[in-house]
């Protein structure tokens, strides 16, 4: 396989300049899991016929509680899980699920996981984490080119100067820095779409916005399409263009971010919003239970 098969960073840059959007589409995705308890076998419908499209340069938030199926969707989009039916389409064409086609798909669609403490290998240096995807997806590149791309990636995620981080190992970095490395690693193959599954929920609160802002900035610069999976309605609203609300494997409400949060239609969305902490309502709960007692 030669490097020319892959669109190089420059080539995709050109494509962006020409305004070629591209899209990542989930079409009628279904995922059933077989549950066994003793001799009984039952079906869990984790994801029920879900369709949506992530366009280049846009962020879609998938919100819902644990067990609602949002991570299963992420895993299907990342090809870590095969759908029971339905498919994933990239730029309108069915995506490959094995061999070269899968490799090509993976260079376009990458994932950022929730736990930066578990998703980086403690044995390897930061530069190794970034070199490897570059080498795998661009085998034609020379040593010097790989090294310069690694430095460029670290600078893009604001780990500067890059030389300070190259030889460090994950345990020497803070959670926020580690998540930045994880983002750099997702960008390394030249990905156009990022699936971020709760990318900041394990981080300290004061650095969460920094990491989200970085993702937003990278997205604008490179016209990435981002699927932001979260249970946090406030960041979903501010960080994305569109929100999909999931409940038990179904999308129960979807729409422009502000619309869904400020003018929810579905009863479940209202329940989620009602449950979110809101400092404006301080004392309200106390007064309510006091009246009830």
């Amino acid at each position, binding site marked *: 396989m030669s490097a020319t098969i892959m669109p190089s960073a420059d080539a995709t840059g050109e494509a962006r300049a020409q305004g070629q959007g591209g899209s990542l589409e989930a079409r009628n995705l279904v995922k059933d899991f077989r549950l066994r308890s003793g001799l009984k076998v039952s079906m869990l419908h984790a994801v029920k016929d879900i369709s949506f499209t992530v366009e280049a340069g846009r962020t879609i938030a998938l919100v819902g509680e644990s067990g609602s199926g949002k991570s299963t969707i992420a895993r299907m989009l990342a090809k870590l899980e095969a759908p029971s039916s339905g498919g994933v389409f990239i730029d309108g064409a069915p995506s490959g699920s094995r061999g070269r086609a899968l490799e090509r798909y993976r260079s376009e669609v990458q994932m950022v996981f929730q736990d930066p403490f578990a998703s980086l290998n403690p044995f390897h240096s930061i530069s190794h984490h970034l070199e490897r995807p570059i080498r795998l997806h661009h085998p034609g590149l020379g040593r010097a080119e790989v090294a310069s791309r690694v430095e460029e990636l670290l600078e893009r995620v604001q780990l500067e100067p890059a030389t300070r981080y190259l030889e460090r190992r994950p345990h020497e970095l803070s959670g926020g820095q580690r998540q930045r490395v994880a983002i750099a690693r997702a960008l390394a193959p030249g990905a156009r779409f990022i699936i971020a599954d709760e990318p900041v929920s394990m981080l*300290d609160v004061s650095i969460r*916005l920094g990491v989200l802002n970085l993702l937003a900035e990278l997205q604008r610069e490179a016209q990435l399409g981002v699927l932001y999976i979260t249970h946090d309605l406030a960041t979903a*609203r*501010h960080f994305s263009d569109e929100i999909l609300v999931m409940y038990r494997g179904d999308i129960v409400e979807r729409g422009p971010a502000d619309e869904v949060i400020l003018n929810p239609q579905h009863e479940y969305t209202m329940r989620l919003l009602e449950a979110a*902490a*809101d400092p404006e309502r*301080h*004392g309200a709960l106390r007064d309510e239970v006091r009246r009830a007692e």
Partner: protein
Amino acid sequence: MTAPEASARFGEPVLTARGVSIEYEVDPPVQAVRDVTLTLHRGEILGLAGESGCGKTTLAYGLNRLLKPPALQTSGEIVFHDRDGDDIDVVSLSDERLRAFRWSKVSMVFQGAMNSLNPVLNVRAQLDDVLRTHRPGMKKAERLARSRELLELVGVDPDRISSFPHELSGGMRQRVMIAMALALDPQVMIMDEPTTALDVVVQRGIIREIMRLRERLGFAVIFITHDLPLLIEISDRIAVMLRGEIVELGTAESVYRDPQHEYTKRLLSSFPSLRGDRGGFLRGTGANQEVAS
């Protein structure tokens, strides 16, 4: 309720800490808690906010004398003002008296409740254990009746008393933990991130339960979390911790409306507003940049 009303209602102190410092005796020593002075009033919810590593959990453990080496309280006094008028010097309690003091006067709900129940004992055995240890005079039937009553109090069907922890949902396990903490009718409950691992809707249910029980039973709560919006919503007063020190202490309203310390302001700004405007959040301005470029 306005601030003066609140202080009138929560006049009498139940727990006073003066100049408490706690050190981890490692090399080099770590000052985890520095000169903390804090008064908890009867029936009050005091929120303790701060990020990981700020010493909030260490302080909570110190208040209940649960510190284990290498953690050591190096200075300060902790006095518990009992309901019947006795003042108990917590720091100098002998082992035997400490055992009687803990849980019956001050109980704790620990972080990660998913894992703090014993997986091989059913709920009944674990509740029974608390009562048998601290109330040796109680008969078996009385203990069972009390255990069922406790479950009912926290909103768990008493018929689930024979369930094992793995048979309960996360929210139910947390409710069982609260039932255990309530078993001896404590005057203070220290809750360390009691709802962090739970889904928002479940979390809201637990919070409501805690508020309701406080109204009914009149215990005071030290509620520890990094979730400042939640604290503002439910607390009477809030203490903000940074690097082992309390940098700001005030009513929930004043901390929210008029934060004094830089760090409090930063923490507050780390939580984008759910329903309010976009504020300084970068993505809002980013859209304009995109148009401009």
